[in-house]
């Protein structure tokens, strides 16, 4: 029996546990055993992005050690955290001959959730049902960070009952950018406004994302503007049968 390690991500763990449950459900349905290492916390991206490399490194070392005690591929419902493992850990440990190897070993085991389903398992249809319109926002780090785009789109295309509509200017950032949304709220607000008005143009009541960061940001904006649309992680669409 294949077993994978779930890296839940700090945002999904603390704010959107349902996303994690949906991931587990889908993997179990596909005959994949899921393990969860309880010492995992965060990938360290907020610190890394902010330029606090010492702190980022402490978290990264912790994360590497936690997963070194486990076996199997690591699946994470976040393009951003997958990008962190795959590219930024290499940057963080550059020039450190021991840690760079450990970081690379971690990266080699890591898959973003849809990437794992499509590229590793070869599955594009998980038997999901959804009634109504869906539109997809490709999160920056999923789309450009790890070049994962056709995978979530293929999975969504096979959801029974769902009609996929293209989000205008889908590739534009929603304005989250981690701490940027706090450090430069004015910029963040403008992009969020644009993202929400593009969402409204689709008439879709549901926006699908691959990252809890975008989810929290866009949903927070929709709630502030008292809009009816909801933002949902792709795992929760795919787990719906």
């Amino acid at each position: 029996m294949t077993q994978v390690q779930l890296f839940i991500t700090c945002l999904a763990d603390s704010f959107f546990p349902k996303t994690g449950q949906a991931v587990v459900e889908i993997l179990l349905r596909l005959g994949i055993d899921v393990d969860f290492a309880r010492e995992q916390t965060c990938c360290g991206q907020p610190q890394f992005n902010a330029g606090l490399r010492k702190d980022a490194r402490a978290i990264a070392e912790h994360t590497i050690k936690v997963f070194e005690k486990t076996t199997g591929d690591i699946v994470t419902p976040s393009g951003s955290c997958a990008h962190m493992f795959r590219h930024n850990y290499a940057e963080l440990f550059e020039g450190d001959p021991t840690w760079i190897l450990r970081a690379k070993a971690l990266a080699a085991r890591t898959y973003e959730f849809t990437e794992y389903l499509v590229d590793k398992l070869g599955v594009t249809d998980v038997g999901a049902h959804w009634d109504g319109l869906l539109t997809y926002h490709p999160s920056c780090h999923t789309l450009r960070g790890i070049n994962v785009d056709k995978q979530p789109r293929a999975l969504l295309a096979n959801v029974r009952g769902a009609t996929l509509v293209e989000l205008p200017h889908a590739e534009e950032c929603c304005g989250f950018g981690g701490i940027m949304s706090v450090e430069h709220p004015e910029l963040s607000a403008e992009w969020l406004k644009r993202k929400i008005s593009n969402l409204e143009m689709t008439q879709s009541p549901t926006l699908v994302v691959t990252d809890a960061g975008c989810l929290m940001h866009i949903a927070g904006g929709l709630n502030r503007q008292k809009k009816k649309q909801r933002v949902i992680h792709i795992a929760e669409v795919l787990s719906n049968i």
Partner: protein
Amino acid sequence: MHTFRQRIRQSIENKTLQIALDNNAERRLKGRALAFESIPDWRERRQRAHTIRDNVIEQLDEYLAQFIAKNEENGVIVHRAKDAAEAIQIILQILKDLPQAHKENQKEISAHQRSSASPIIIAKSKSMVSEEIELNHALEKENIRVIETDLGEYIVQLRHERPSHIITPAAHLRKEQVGELFHEKLGIPYTTDIPTLTAAARKVLREVFLTADIGFSGVNFGVAETGTTCIITNEGNGRMVTTIPPVHIALMGMERLVPNLNDLSLMLSLLPRSATGQKLTAYAQLLNKPLANQTRHLILLDNGRTRLRNSPLKESLYCIRCGACLNACPVFRELSGHAYIGSDQSIAPYPGPIGSVISPGLLGENYVQLAQASSLCGACKDVCPVDIDLPKLLTRVRAGSSTQPAVGGGKGLSSSTKIGLQLYARLATHPKLYAASQKFAALGTYLLSPRSKWIRLPAFTGWGYSKDFPRFAGKTFREDFIKKNIVESERFTPKIRPAAESATAEEIELKGNKIEQFTKELTALSGHVTITKNPTQKIIEFLNTRRISKIHLEPNTLNESLLQEASIEFTHTSDDQILVGVTNAICGLADTGSILIADGEGRPLHASLLPEIHIAILKSSDILSSLPNAMGLVKDKSAAVFITGPSRTADIEMTLTIGVHGPKEIHVFVDDSNSG
């Protein structure tokens, strides 16, 4: 006095600016995408370009030595400046040493006399390096008249502003503002008609070209092997300043080298496409030696580049200044170049994602705060023609790598965020404490907002400025996770499909024959193509229809006795009053509709530049597929230019306007007499 955040707010609140910036982003990105469709192998090309630039920066000293030696051999006076002050000193010294003879020489084509007491006039083509060293300011202090001749630069100079975009200096303005400016400064009636505004600038600036003591330009690329400097422009001002005045000064960032002409042709397939969505700019000049009666100075500027090269930001030196990352950047789209300010409030010389790396990289700590204004969305890396990992470099600036090794870090970060993130890092390395703090946060956020899952935070928190914050989940995932066994009945047997293969790069092949392709490309750019077995006859007919009886003719181009019979007067010297210039084209390029003109007897470079109409004769057998095939023809010429359509600009509201400084019309007569 404004802080960076205040400037950001001002830009966002400026509706006119926002419309201008949206136009810029949308049109440029669309144009870029379209232009790249014609090179399906662009991903491979950009990797090659990356490797070439990597190699150049790695072995910069060797390439520089080769480039300098070749230039000196070619008769170019080479100077090296370690910083801005030194570059300015060199330029002032050149002005001081300006021989009186130069001023006399020039009168050949000058209609106006100036008294010797009048200040020195410098006709300046666009140069971002000159912005970097604040050259205009320094020269004006010395009572030297510097006139920007790129339309966009001219507009911002008249407004006493700095360019807001490295490719489109007046990207922040709308036509109404330009109309008012020209009405006030040039005394023309107020108009928003862009061709009229362009024509007004053409008239004023034509005088400048003809009377300038010095032509000043930047450099797009230097070619180490041949010493060639390459300057690309659309309006023709770059050609004017390097061709007409008796002295040409070129200022170049010392990193802007490519090893050879082949590498240059690769760069030229990427740069215009990325910058303006063109397959090739109207003019791509390749200068080897000074022209007759011309002195050329080349100043190679360091100004922090050596330091940058030895820093973790080295990769930023690969930049070829196309501006694509500005157009793709959502931050730039809100700000424009004027809002990128340092902690001393001065405007950074380079805006956008690349600017947020090289401004602090070249000029230091003052500009590190710019790097925090990014969501690291990666749109910049995605469009970069040399694949610079800009998001990575931005995080390096934030880590403090531009000035010192990553000690401390968090450059440009507010102290509250910094403390918060450091505290969070402590928790994240102690899982038990972490889990406890999640419970604590869940309780806290519940108490803050017992009735809603969302908390309305106040604006000062940053997050609360435009969105609500979610309550922590009552039960985190980790609390809830119980390892389940797979229940066979619930199992779904998936259809296994192999993941779709990514599209493989198609081979580029010319459809149809080269003449057809050439004609199609040039016609699309508003050029005219006539295929004929008797070009002289056809040209005489054309001149008769236009009632033109005098031309500037390159020798050995047309049947001169036929011209005489038809009473067409011709001269082999340049004359500003002549409407038509006729030259030979050394070759044509089918995939871009370009023709190659080189310096030679009868001044073909002038004949193809000063008149309103340029006629070129191109042998059908001289039409080559594309730029790389033609590079060999440039080597032994003192100067040459690839001309792709008539002179053009899009500096006002991105609206294409034909005929700025160079010819308004281009007619190519393809001589098909040798083919069957």
